[in-house]
């Protein structure tokens, strides 16, 4: 790697400043690094190819319009029906309920951490939120099924709910997403310059109005990013829904009922023994494609909004 390992005296005796030979080692290293970096592009390409090819085949068997607008999802019936709306309804329900929980809790936690908590409190609470974020989703699924539905929904609220229900899955998933929303939102709020707050305090504003009227609007793009990222997580979450919300494709919007989501359908179908190459097998990919596109849009929106506040404040 060292080209001109000249001696101390030699460095002066040979005045030429050209390298003794080209530093091939440096180029090789850079090449390897680029190759590694290229893997992440390859991963995305791989995902798209893995989804696209069977999806195209799937649409040879089933019309695109039938897939997107059909309201019956019965791949196993004779004749089968492949309308994806029931799966979308399930996804919408679980995601909606989750965000009803995660948005207020996550933003509230963010406001508390960024505006009220003293550094020491923050230092102890943030790791707790990080632990919550690190709990595997299967554990949340277990909790929703064996504790939240029987003990809390049925026990505490005397709710008449199916043991597999959208409500428990959605609420528990909401808690799973709280740390995501809280941490992205808190980053944005902390990035709001102190001078803005001081200006408002100087006018006699209370902490309440500073938080809601100054910090919140100033951090808005970060908050939007946090919520959109939360939605992306909720749409893509498999295990909680698969375990706690049962395995039925229906058009019911009753949250006490069981329901498939896009992701949990994929999980359930992949787990069962579906013959490779059958139309039913290809549904995994068609539904996966839809899931990927939906979350991709969410992620790109979120990335955009994060950029926006970074540009303003950093």
């Amino acid at each position, binding site marked *: *790697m060292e080209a001109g390992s000249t001696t101390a005296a030699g460095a002066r005796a040979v005045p030429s400043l050209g390298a003794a030979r080209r530093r091939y080692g*440096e180029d090789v290293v850079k090449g390897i690094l680029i190759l590694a970096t290229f893997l992440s592009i390859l991963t995305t390409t791989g995902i798209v190819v*893995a989804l696209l090819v069977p999806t195209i085949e799937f649409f040879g068997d089933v019309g695109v319009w039938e897939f997107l607008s059909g309201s019956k999802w019965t791949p196993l019936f004779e004749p089968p029906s492949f309308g994806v709306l029931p799966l979308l309804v399930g996804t919408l329900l679980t995601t909606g309920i989750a965000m009803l929980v995660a948005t207020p809790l996550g933003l*509230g936690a963010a406001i*508390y951490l960024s505006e009220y908590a003293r550094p020491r409190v923050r230092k102890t609470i943030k790791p707790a939120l990080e632990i919550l974020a690190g709990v595997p989703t299967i*554990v949340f699924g277990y909790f929703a099924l064996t504790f939240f539905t029987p003990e809390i929904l049925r026990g505490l609220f005397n709710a008449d709910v199916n043991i597999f229900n959208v409500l428990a899955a959605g609420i528990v998933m909401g808690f799973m997403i709280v740390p995501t929303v809280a941490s992205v939102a808190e980053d944005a709020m902390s990035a709001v310059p102190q001078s803005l707050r001081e200006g408002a305090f100087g006018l006699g504003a209370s902490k309440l109005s500073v938080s809601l009227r100054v910090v919140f609007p100033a951090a808005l793009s970060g908050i939007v990013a946090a919520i959109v990222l939360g939605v992306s997580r909720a749409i893509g979450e498999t295990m909680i829904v698969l375990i706690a919300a049962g395995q039925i494709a229906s058009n019911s919007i009753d949250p006490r009922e069981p329901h498939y989501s896009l*992701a949990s359908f994929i999980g359930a179908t992949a787990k069962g023994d579906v013959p490779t190459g059958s139309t039913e097998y290809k549904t995994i990919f068609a539904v996966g494609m839809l899931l990927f596109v939906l*979350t991709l849009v969410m*992620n790109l929106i979120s990335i955009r909004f994060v950029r926006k506040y970074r540009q303003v404040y950093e």
Partner: protein
Amino acid sequence: MSAHGGAIGKAPASQRAKDTGFRLTMLACLGLSVGLLALLLYDVVKDGASHLTMDFLTSFGSISADKAGAEAAIWGTIWIMVVCAAFIVPVGVATAIYLEEYADHSRWWNRLIEVNIQNLASVPSIVYGILGLAFLVRGPLSLGPVVLAGGLCLGLLVLPVVIIASREAIRAVPPSIREGSLALGATQWQTIRRQVLPASIPGIATGVILALSRAIGETAPLIVIGAATVIAFNPEGLDSRFTALPIQIFDWISRASNDVNNYKPLAAAAILFLMILLLLMNSVAIWLRNRYEQKW
């Protein structure tokens, strides 16, 4: 604040009450989230603690719930974590070095790579399962649902975590260190290899552990690539079929409600074990960060 507010004619009492109310509401949001974590831990400990015995850890799965244990799952998890680590450390660190030290960020392709990695970090895990199924288990590599495929699939899933953490660690090394090294006649790679990397290793190690602790609990991709649920042997190599803790847990949860046997405590015990592993990994990460992190 409200005291001064009073002096200029606002209603101090109601103002203060509102302020306190708001503060408490925000605190409640935080408390509720942490409270749920506590409830969840309580539930798992209550259900599983009595089952988490040496016998449980050293027996294979069984048709009878009393005899079933998690040995195959534990070893399967260890195997895929080793594969995963062996994959993500070199690839993740290399990518981070390229993006921080070499890439010219005014070029569109480098910005595209960055957005791509940010997006990959939020692609649903089940989609990685589909990727693994199409390319690792079947398709070009056709490895089958074996340890190597499982480890690589989870590796691809958590690679963005490692890249993002390593980039932060590398960025934390001040430019003056690089300048000092280059000004002595060190080449760019010598500078990275001997100054930048050693100084950022604690941060990188923390990132790797966090990535592994995400991978260890992932279930959905393993389901899709077809990890076995009932298996009565430990993996013997990269080409062995395997099961893993989350898969085993999922299997037991699925059975809990529709079988004569009571599998619920088994699931809880395995969850408890998984959570203890996670706690250990996180402690190591925190310790590493506090002990070795370079203060500039």
